[in-house]
C-alpha cells in the first residue's frame, strides 16, 4: 500500500519547527536569521533529541543535536541540561554571584536561556530539582574558582560537556530516595548520547562535538554554486586520529581488542559519548550500582553485561572537540545533523539542496540537447527530476523537512521519488530501524549583511 503525498507530508512535517530571530526596529542585528529543525523517527520512541536556545545573560545562541543509544534517557537529559552547563560556564563572575544570591535568598532567578522548542520536545519535570541542584553545585564551584579572566568559549564548552557527564555519572552512583528518579538517573547513566553543539555569537562560530553527529557549513561560491565545509570530526573508527587517541590512552596489550569491527571494544560505534557508564566505570563500581539498583535494572541483561576485554576503564569520554570558525559573508547556513542524515547523503549534496532551497533557485537553466547523444528515456528521467525538485521545494516551508524528504526519498538519480518516500515512511516500526536511522536536523541560516558589516568593522 502507498501513502498519498498529503499523508507523506503530514508524516514529514509532524516535528518541523522554525524560528526566526525577531527584528528590532525593522532590523535583524543578529548574525543569525533563524533556523529550521525537524526530526524523523526510525526507533520507537525516537532516540534523537534536539535543542535550541538563546543565551540571555551572555550573547549568542546555542543549537545542538543529540543522538541517543541504548535508549533515549541520556539524550533526553543532555538535551535538557547541556545548554545550562554551557551558559553557566560562559557567565561572568558577577552574574554567577547574582544568580547564587537570588537562589540563596529565594528571589526570582535571572533567566539564563530562552528555549526554542517544538511542542514535542519535552523537559522532565520530575528531575528538574535534581538537575538544578547539580547545576547549582557547578556554578558554586565556578564562583569559588573565580579566575578573574574573561571566559573563553572553547574552554567553557569543554568544561560544560565534561561537567555534565560527570554529574550524570555521580547522580547514578549516589542514587535518589525517590524510586522513579533513582531509576531515571541510572537509565541516563547506562544509556548514551552523542552531542553536536553550535554556539554562535556574532561572527564567532564554535562547534563542540562529541560522537558521530556532524556540523557542516554551507558556503556559496562566487559562481553561485554550493560547497560544504565540515566543522566537526566524527568520533568513530573511521577517524584515524580518534583511533590513535584511544590507543594512546590504553596499554599496548589492549591494542587489538580496543577497536573491533569498527566499534569501541567491539560494541560501541561512537568513540566519545555522554553516559555509557559501562565504558567508564570500573567493573566493581558497575556491579555495585547494578546490584543495589532497582529490580528493573537488575533484570536488564544489557546493564549487567560487562564489555569484553575491559581492563583499564574509562574507555569513553564526553570531552568534545571544539572547532572555531569566523563567519564570512559567503557562509550562508550551518547544518547540524545526527548520523541518520550523513549515512544517506553526502555533505556536498546537502549543501546544494539546502542552498538551492534557501536561495529559492527554482528557476532552472533550460535544457538543450545540442549535439549530445541523449535517449528519450534519459531525457524523461532528467525532466522528471527537474519537476520533482521544483515541486518538492514548493511543498516544504522548512529547510530541514526538505532535507529529510531528500534523505529518505532520493532515488539513484538523487531526486525525490514519491514511491520510494512513501515506502520508506510506511515501513512497520520493527523494520524501520533496519532501513534508516533516526534523523535530526537543524539548519541555521546566517545573516550575510550583518556578517559583512562585522567584517568591515575589523
Amino acid at each position, binding site marked *: 500500500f502507498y501513502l498519498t503525498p498529503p499523508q507523506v507530508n503530514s508524516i514529514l512535517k509532524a516535528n518541523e519547527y522554525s524560528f526566526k530571530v525577531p527584528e528590532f526596529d525593522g532590523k535583524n542585528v543578529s548574525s543569525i536569521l533563524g533556523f529550521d529543525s525537524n526530526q524523523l523517527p526510525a526507533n520507537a520512541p525516537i532516540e534523537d533529541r534536539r535543542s535550541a536556545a538563546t543565551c540571555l545573560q551572555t550573547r549568542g545562541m546555542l543549537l545542538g543535536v543529540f543522538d541517543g543509544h541504548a535508549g533515549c534517557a541520556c539524550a533526553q537529559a543532555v538535551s535538557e541540561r547541556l545548554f545550562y552547563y554551557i551558559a553557566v560556564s560562559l557567565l561572568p563572575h558577577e552574574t554567577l554571584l547574582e544568580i547564587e544570591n537570588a537562589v540563596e535568598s529565594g528571589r526570582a532567578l535571572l533567566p539564563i536561556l530562552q528555549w526554542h522548542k517544538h511542542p514535542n520536545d519535552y523537559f522532565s519535570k520530575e528531575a528538574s530539582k535534581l538537575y538544578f541542584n547539580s547545576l547549582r553545585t557547578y556554578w558554586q564551584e565556578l564562583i569559588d574558582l573565580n579566575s578573574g579572566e574573561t571566559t573563553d568559549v572553547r574552554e567553557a564548552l569543554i568544561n560544560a560537556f565534561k561537567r555534565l557527564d560527570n554529574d550524570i555519572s555521580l547522580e547514578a552512583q549516589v542514587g535518589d530516595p525517590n524510586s522513579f528518579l533513582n531509576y531515571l538517573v541510572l537509565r541516563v547513566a547506562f544509556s548514551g548520547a552523542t552531542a553536536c553543539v553550535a554556539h554562535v555569537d556574532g561572527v564567532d562560530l564554535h562547534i563542540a562535538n562529541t560522537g558521530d553527529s556532524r556540523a557542516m557549513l554551507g558556503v556559496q561560491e562566487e559562481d553561485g554554486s554550493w560547497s560544504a565545509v565540515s566543522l566537526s570530526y566524527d568520533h568513530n573508527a573511521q577517524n584515524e586520529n580518534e583511533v590513535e587517541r584511544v590507543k594512546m590512552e590504553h596499554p599496548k596489550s589492549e591494542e587489538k581488542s580496543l577497536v573491533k569491527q569498527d566499534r569501541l571494544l567491539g560494541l560501541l560505534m561512537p568513540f566519545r559519548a555522554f553516559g555509557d557508564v559501562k565504558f567508564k566505570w570500573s567493573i566493581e563500581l558497575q556491579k555495585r550500582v547494578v546490584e543495589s539498583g532497582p529490580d528493573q535494572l537488575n533484570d536488564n541483561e544489557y546493564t549487567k553485561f560487562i564489555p569484553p576485554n575491559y581492563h583499564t576503564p574509562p574507555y569513553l569520554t564526553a570531552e568534545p572537540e571544539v572547532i572555531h570558525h569566523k563567519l564570512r559573508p559567503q557562509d550562508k547556513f550551518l547544518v547540524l545533523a545526527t548520523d541518520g542524515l550523513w549515512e544517506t547523503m553526502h555533505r556536498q549534496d546537502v549543501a546544494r539542496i539546502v542552498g538551492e532551497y534557501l536561495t529559492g533557485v527554482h528557476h*532552472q537553466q*533550460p*535544457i*538543450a*540537447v545540442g549535439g549530445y*547523444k*541523449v*535517449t*528519450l*528515456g534519459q*531525457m*524523461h528521467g*532528467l*525532466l*522528471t527530476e*527537474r*519537476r520533482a525538485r521544483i515541486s518538492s521545494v514548493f511543498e516544504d516551508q522548512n529547510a530541514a523537512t526538505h532535507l529529510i524528504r531528500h534523505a529518505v526519498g532520493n532515488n539513484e538519480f538523487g531526486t525525490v521519488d514519491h514511491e520510494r518516500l512513501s515506502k520508506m515512511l510506511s515501513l512497520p516500526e520493527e523494520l524501520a530501524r533496519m532501513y534508516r536511522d533516526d534523523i535530526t536536523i537543524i539548519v541555521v541560516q546566517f545573516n550575510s549583511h550583518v556578517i559583512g558589516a562585522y567584517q568591515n568593522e575589523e
Partner: protein
Amino acid sequence: AAGMFLRLLSDIQWRAAHPRWRRMAGSPRSSSTTAEPRPLALPAQAQVVICGGGIMGTSVAYHLSKMGLKDIVLLEQGRLAAGTTRFCAGIVSTARPVSIELKMAHYSNKLYQQLEQETGVQTGYTKTGSISLAQTQDRLISLKRIASSLNVMGIPCEIISPKKVLQLHPLINIHDLVGALYVPEDALVSSANVSLALATAASRNGVQIHERTSVSHVTIQKGRVTGVETDRGRVQCEYFVNCAGQWAYELGHSGEEPVHIPLHACEHFYLLTHPLQEPLSSSLPTIVDPDGRIYIRNWQGGILSGGFEKNPKPLFTEGRNQLEIQNLQEDWDHFGPLLGALLRRMPAVEALQIMQLVNCPESFTPDMRCIMGESPTARGYFVLAGMNSAGISYGGGAGKYLAEWIVNGYPSENVWPLDLKRFGTLQSSRTFLRHRVMEVMPLMYDLKVPRWDFQTGRQLRTSPLYDRLDAQGARWMEKHGFERVKYFVPPGNDLLDLDHSKTFYKPDWFDIVGSEVKCCKEAVCVIDMSSFTKFEISSTGDQALESLQYLFSNDLDVPVGHVVHTGMLNEKGGYENDCSIARLSKRSFFMISPTDQQVHCWAWLKNRLPDDSNLVLEDVTWKYTALNLIGPRAVDVLSELSYAPMTAEHFPSLFCKEMSVGYANGIRVMSITHTGEPGFVLYIPIEYALHVYNEVMNMGQKYGIRNAGYYALRSLRIEKFFAFWGQDLDAFTTPMECGREFQVKLDKGMEFLGQEALLEQKQNGVYKRFTMFILEDHDTDMDLWPWWGEPIFRNGRYVGKTTSSAYSYTLERHVCLGFVHHFDEKTGEELVVTTDFINQGEYEIDIAGQRFQAKAKLYPFSSLFTQRRRKDEVELSGYQRE
C-alpha cells in the same frame, strides 16, 4: 521566365543547384541596380493575388489555375513552404468530428495521392493508416461517432480492439486502452513537398510565383480590393487571397480598412528521433492518443511525436514581423508531460536517441475551426488561414472550396462553419485571442461532448439584465460573444462541476429544463433573447420595400403592423438567412435574425442594396433588449401591464405594435415566440430593460411566471419541427426542401432572388426533404443521446444526416430533425424525394454506431398546438396543410 521557374521548382535540390537565382532573389533591390535583368518582374496587374506560399496559398493557386483562371500571382515573403508548412508533421487524417472538415481532409488525401504522378515532384505520400486510441469509454463513443460519419461517406474505417491495435502497431502499450478507431487510408506526406508540388502544377498552369516578396498592405476602395502594395512595387488586382498563416491577422490589420481575421499563434512542439536499431517501417500507422494528448508517426526509421499540451504557450500576441519562422527555442520542460505520455504509450522507444525537439508555431482560431471566405467589409478580399494545426489535412479541400468561391461566387459545399463572417470585430481583440487560443489548443485533444461552451473570452456582450439573471441561478452559454442563459438552476439545486458534467448521455440539467418547458406550456416564462441580430431598413420612398421584396422570398408588402417569416435566399434558392420582418410603417422595416447573422446578413444586404443615400440600413442590435414571454398566460401578464387587450382578436399572431409596458413607452411588442407556443417578444429600448423586466416578473407572479433559458426554447422548437438557420438551414437548403413553401410567394408580382431555382424545384421536385424523427426504442436514461450529424438510415440504407435534436418533454421522446435524400440503389445518383418516399420507409438513427428505430414525420404533431390564431399564416412550418 516562368519556364525557368518551373524547372527550379520541380527540382527538390533547386536552391543548391541554382545559387545564382538564390542570390538575386535574396536581394531583389540590389539586383535591380545591376545590369543583370531581374528574372521575374512583378506584373503591374493580375486578376488574383495570393499572399503566402505555404500549403494554403499553393493549394488555392493550384485550384484556381485548374479552374481556368490564368492571371494569378502568388507572393511569398520568404521561400515557398518555409513557414508552418515546412515544420508540419505531415499527417493527413480524416478522423474529424466536423463534417465539412472531414470532407476537406478526404479530398486532400485523394489529391495528394495522385500529386506526385501529376507533377513529378516527390511528395512522400505513404498510405499508413491512422489509429486513434481510446483510454476511456467516453473517448470510444466519440470515436464511434466519427466512425459513423466516415462510414456513410464511404471512407473505410473500423472500431478495433486493443489487441488489434497491437497487431497493427507492435510497439504500442495497450493495457490501458478500451478500443480504437482505425482509418486505413489515412496517409503521411512531406508537407513542404506537397506544397512545392502544388506550386509546380500551378506554375505550369500559368500562375506566377514570386518569392522574397512581402505584401505590406492591401488597398481597398469603395469596399472593394483594388491591389496590393509590396516591397517590390504595386500589383493591381481584383481578388486578393490572404493565406499568410499566422501573419494573416497582422496582414489583415495592415491596411487603412482593417480586415479582421481572428487567429493567434501558439508554440507547438514535436520530437524527432534517430532511427530505431531495427528501423521502424515507413508503413506503420500513425498513432493518435488524444487522452495522452499526443500523436506519433514513423519518421525515417525513428519517430516523430508531438501533442497538444494543457498549458499552451501563445506567442506573437503583439505581432512580430519576421521573414520566416525562426526555429524557436526548444523547451524540454514544457514538453516533459508529452514525453511522458509518449513513453507510456510506446515504452520501447525509451532507448531512442533524440534528434531534435522542433518548436513550430501554429495558428489557432477562437472556435477551433479554420477561417475561409470573403471579408464582410472588403469585396474581393479572401482569406484562408487559421488551420488549428491541421493545415496539411485541410489544405487540398480548403484550397478547392476557396477557389470555387472566387470563381463561382460560392463553394460547392456548405462552409458556413468555416466562414470568416461567423466572426465579427469583437473576436479580433488581441487579448481575447490570446486567452481563447490557450483554451482552444488543449481542446484539440479534449473530449468533445455535446453542448460544450468556451470558458475564456466570456462576458463580453451581455444583456442589461445579466446580473439580475445571474443572481437567479442563470447558467450561461455564449453565441457570437453574447451571453445567453441555458437554464436557471433553482436555489438549493447543485449541478455537477464543468468537467464532471461532460457526458454523451442524459445531462444533469434534464429535470431543470423539463420544469422550464412545463412552465412554458402551462403558465408563462421569460427568456432573455437580446442576442438576436436586429436591423432596421427604412427609406424616404418605396426603395426599402422594393429592395426587400427582391431580397426576400415572402411577400413583404403586408399591412403595417404585420410580421412576416421569410428566408433571405441566394440565387440557388438556398437560405442565406432566415428571419422575421415586421413592417413598422409604410417605409420602414424591423428585421430579426439569428445571433450569428450579424456580420453575414449585414454584408449580404450591404452588397445587394442599391447605393442610395435615401435608403438606410441600420444595425440596432445593441439598442434593444428582447424579452420573450412564452406560454398561455403571457397574454394576461402583458394586458395587465399595458391596460391594453392582448387577446387574439385584438393582437393576432404575427403582429407587431409599439405600446407601453409599465411606465415605459415605445416597447415594440411582437406576437411571435420562436417556439410555436403562444406569447410575445418585447423589444425594449435598453434603458427600460430592467424596469420592464421587474414589472413583468412582479405582475407575472400570480400567473406562475419564471425565468427560462435557451435549452427550453430548443426543446420546444424542435418538438414543433421548427428549423433554425445555422443548424438545420444553410445556403444549400431551399424553403421547398423544408416544407416552407408557404413562406415563398412565387406569385408576389415581382422577381426575387432565388425565384428561378425555386420555380424549378416546384416543378421538378426536391432532392432532399427536411424530416422529423421520433426515436422509438431509445431509453432516455440509459442510451446515448443524439446530438447532430447522426446518420439516418431508411430501410437499412444511408439517406442523410440529422441537423439537430432535442428531448421533447411533451412527447417524452427524443426528436431529431434532419434531411432525407434518395440515392439510387445502383448508381448512387440523387433522385427526387417524394412524400411517399418519406412516408414509406422504415427509419433508423445511428448514434455512435448504435441504431435506434425512428418514426419519420413531415408535419408536426397537431396535438402540440393548443391555440391557433390567424388562419392565413400560422407561425409554423407546413402546418397549413392540415
